[in-house]
């Protein structure tokens, strides 16, 4: 059965729903995992994403099916739900200071980069840029896919990605804070 058929039947046929759910749960779960700290929050966000997706499935079929793939539509919900979580939560900026202490001031040299450092570092970026980095480097998506999810042109995404990477690199090198970039 094609994905289009699965999507068509997912609200009525429990088998189609399960197939779709099992295909996308790990992807969505990993996306949220890379953005939030604790498991309880992640579970809440993932639940909201899937309930929202099931609720809006007829709307997707009616309005968006021709415009974007199911995967992009589902990731768009995930991005929105994650953003909503961060908007509701008070931002904790203390980790920014910790990072400055950790990083050396060594110009263009290679940064001693690992997943945990990057995950912490991107939290100080604006939500839109967090999404860009997360989709590109954690979910390994192409610019075209990211553009579809974020409803932007591919060229725009490339430009934004370049700026965000520059900002992130400078921040990780400890040259300046995000506000100075």
């Amino acid at each position: 059965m094609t994905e289009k058929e699965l999507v068509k039947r997912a609200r009525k046929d429990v088998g189609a729903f399960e197939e779709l759910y099992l295909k996308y749960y790990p992807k969505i779960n990993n996306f949220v995992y890379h953005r939030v700290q604790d498991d309880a929050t992640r579970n809440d966000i993932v639940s909201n994403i899937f309930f929202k997706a099931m609720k809006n499935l007829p709307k997707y079929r009616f309005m968006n099916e021709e415009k974007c793939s199911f995967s992009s539509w589902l990731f768009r919900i995930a991005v929105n739900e994650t953003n909503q979580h961060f908007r509701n939560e008070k931002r904790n900026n203390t980790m920014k200071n910790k990072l400055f202490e950790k990083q050396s001031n060594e110009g263009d040299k290679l940064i001693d980069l690992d997943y945990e450092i990057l995950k912490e570092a991107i939290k100080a970026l604006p939500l839109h840029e967090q999404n860009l980095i997360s989709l590109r480097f954690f979910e390994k998506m192409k610019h075209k896919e990211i553009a579809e999810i974020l409803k932007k042109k591919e060229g725009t995404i490339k430009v934004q990605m370049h700026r965000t990477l520059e900002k992130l690199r400078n921040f990780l090198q400890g040259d300046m804070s995000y506000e100075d970039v």
Partner: protein
Amino acid sequence: MKTFEEQLNSMKIPSVDNDPYEPVLRKRLKAHYFNPVQRTQMQLKWAIGFAVFFFVITIGLIVKPQFALKAHNAAFRESKNISIGTQAPIIEPDYLNYTSIRNPKLRGELDPDKYLEDKAYVIRKYKSHEDNNAVLIVSEFTAQQTQFADNRLF
């Protein structure tokens, strides 16, 4: 920049495998969307919603039929002006026929279908037997408003 991007690309990204929450959420979703009782309740809610909606529309059209015309004009960008309720010919008693626009003597003068009755008036003339003066009392039939005219005006 390329080196930094390559670094990010080659970074080892951990993933969550066999998440224990996956079957929990699957069960919750199935219970919510595939439970027959819940489905029936949902269908019932929709049915009641539609019934209430159409009931309100029907009552609205009975009470204010001109809404249908307004909706039609808005939908098709027309400006039709049909006076609902005055389409049928008015049947009046024979002895009043000559007072109406359908007076046979007026035939050929004007088309009664092009006019709508707006107001009805009663005019009563009184004559004084002392000085032969006359007054006319013009009264609006339903609103009970009266105007007075004396014989200097007619």
